[in-house]
């Protein structure tokens, strides 16, 4: 039998049992849809994280105090405290070639009050002490006013930049720039307000205040930096700069390498890898539903063979080979799997389209491999699970099959 005739004949047989065909195809569609949707969620999470990290700035190094290392002998009873990173350490790093911007960061939470309004409003938020360099490094843009002046690099000037939500909470619709706020009782003048922006990796950039690093040092009574953020020149060698930073800091830490340097790109790469793996895993778990659909295909194939024994006998009497009989039944299963898979892909993309309209901030999108993989698994299930029933049909003796 020619392939085209085989396809036509099989399709004709399926049309005879429309409801049964639809139900089996629908079960395949559910499997394919679930694979596409779940991998889309995983891929959406991956894209979201990647986008968020990218928004922190590219070519970024994060220097932290302390270092995880393996040592010999008994573990120390009291442990060792790493030397803190200081603003001076941060200033020294300007000597390293290939660095574009450096922002030392002191972080803490404080009660912020609007001290210039007749209605006193207060709110406990995150306070970041840094330098003007934090704005280009974190990609922060201003909605109103100015960023911290250059003198904030070295002096504890009482100036602050507010997140947009914090501004709204403290000042409502009134202008905030030039007004005074109190941070843990200390007065700061509002220099600027950040432009509206969403959350970034759980840190609500709209609900925080940025003050000069020296001011934060006095406010929190600490010289210890939380982080040093470093933006590299576009063509700088990340590995070389890391070594230079370690060397420079070590020289001022009694020769100890007691810092950890994280690379934005390496974190991003690791997260990307983990989330991609998660997406594949979720896809594979959801593919179990396709196996269930495969069992249904096998069941229906067995029923079809049983119901069409007479027809099998006739075809054999007319000269159909065992392979032809087998191909007829396998192709029916493949038809059902293909129709179900196509419907499933269509349904999944429709749901994703609607989800995209409902949640525009979340980049939900099925990975490029999801639909082909789901369709391939569905077709494979159709092939594998129809094989045995089709083999049974092919092995029927014509004279017995003709009796029905």
């Amino acid at each position, binding site marked *: 039998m*020619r392939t085209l005739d085989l396809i036509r004949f099989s399709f004709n*047989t399926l049309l005879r049992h429309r409801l049964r065909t639809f139900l089996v195809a629908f079960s395949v569609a559910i499997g394919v849809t679930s694979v596409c949707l779940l991998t889309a969620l995983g891929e959406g999470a991956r894209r979201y994280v990647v986008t968020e990290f990218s928004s922190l700035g590219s070519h970024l190094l994060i220097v932290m105090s302390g270092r995880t290392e393996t040592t010999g002998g008994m573990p120390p009873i009291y442990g060792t405290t790493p030397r803190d990173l200081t603003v001076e350490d941060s200033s020294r790093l300007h000597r390293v070639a290939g660095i574009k911007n450096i922002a030392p960061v002191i972080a803490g939470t404080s009660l912020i009050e609007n001290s210039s309004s007749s209605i006193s409003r207060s709110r406990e938020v995150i306070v970041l002490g840094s330098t003007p360099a934090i704005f280009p490094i974190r990609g922060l843009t201003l909605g109103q006013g100015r960023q911290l002046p250059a003198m904030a690099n070295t002096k504890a000037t009482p100036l602050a930049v507010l997140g947009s939500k914090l501004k709204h909470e403290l000042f409502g619709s009134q202008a905030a720039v030039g007004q005074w706020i109190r941070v843990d009782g200390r007065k700061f003048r509002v220099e600027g307000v950040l432009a509206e922006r969403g959350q970034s990796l759980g840190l609500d950039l709209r609900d925080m205040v940025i003050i000069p690093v020296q001011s934060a040092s006095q406010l929190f009574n600490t010289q210890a930096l939380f982080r040093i953020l470093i933006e590299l020149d576009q063509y700088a060698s990340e590995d070389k700069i890391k070594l230079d930073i370690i060397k420079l800091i070590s020289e001022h830490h009694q020769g100890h390498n007691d810092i950890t340097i994280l690379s934005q790109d390496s974190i991003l790469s690791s997260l990307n890898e983990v989330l991609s793996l998660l997406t594949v895993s979720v896809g594979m778990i959801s593919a179990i539903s396709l196996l269930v659909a495969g069992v249904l295909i096998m069941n229906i194939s067995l029923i079809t063979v049983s119901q069409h024994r007479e027809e099998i006998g006739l075809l*054999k009497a*007319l*000269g*159909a*080979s065992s*392979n032809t009989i087998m191909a007829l039944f396998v192709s029916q299963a493949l038809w059902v799997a293909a129709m179900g898979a196509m419907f499933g892909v269509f349904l999944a993309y429709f749901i994703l389209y609607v989800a995209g309209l409902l949640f525009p901030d979340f980049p939900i999108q099925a990975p490029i491999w999801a639909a082909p993989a789901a369709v391939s698994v569905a077709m494979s299930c159709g092939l594998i699970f129809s094989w045995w029933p089709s083999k049974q049909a092919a092995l029927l003796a014509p004279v017995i099959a003709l009796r029905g």
Partner: protein
Amino acid sequence: MITLTQICKTYAMGGETIKALDHVDLNIHKGDYISVMGTSGSGKSTLLNVIGLLDRPDSGQYFLQQKNVASLDDDTQAQIRRETIGFVFQTFHLIPRLTAFENIELPLILDKIPATERRSKVIKALKQMGLERYQSHRPNEMSGGQMQRVAIARAIVNEPNILLCDEPTGNLDSHSSADVIAVLEALNQQGITLLVVTHDAKLGKRATRSLWMDDGQILKDETQSGALISAHP
């Protein structure tokens, strides 16, 4: 054309062994018109099934066109059926979802004949059976006689040498039966070897040669003129 030598076939039925064919010897020549008659369970249909390669004998030799075919594998036997043998069954065995045209087309599809050639062959067969008007009809839209003529058209569309008919008029009224018999005899006159299994003595006597079977044996093998070819006690 066909030579059966010491063909035996047994079936197990309810713990009992039934001899469906018991050392059957038979020669069939090209163009023969043979009827096979006998009571139910005498082995008529089994003989037809063995000759048509639908069933395998337990022992004995079967030569079809000088070729020992009994021991061939399933697919080779299927190929011989496709090319050499046509079947007409009592219950027509038409596929209900297919039209008359499509039912007749089936053997050609199985033989991988191209669509245009298939069409001309099917139309020729339809014309031969006087069924041109019914080519788009499904079996449930036709009478018994028409369905049997579709089945005959399907059996001859591949231009087989042998036509095996199992009770071809068993489900038909007398008018349709006469019609079908006339069609079959016309085909025999065109050179097709015709073997008809029947209960109908009238139909049986129309054949140029009649076999009488009982208990799996051919009791009598005689020509229309009354000449006895062979007889078993």
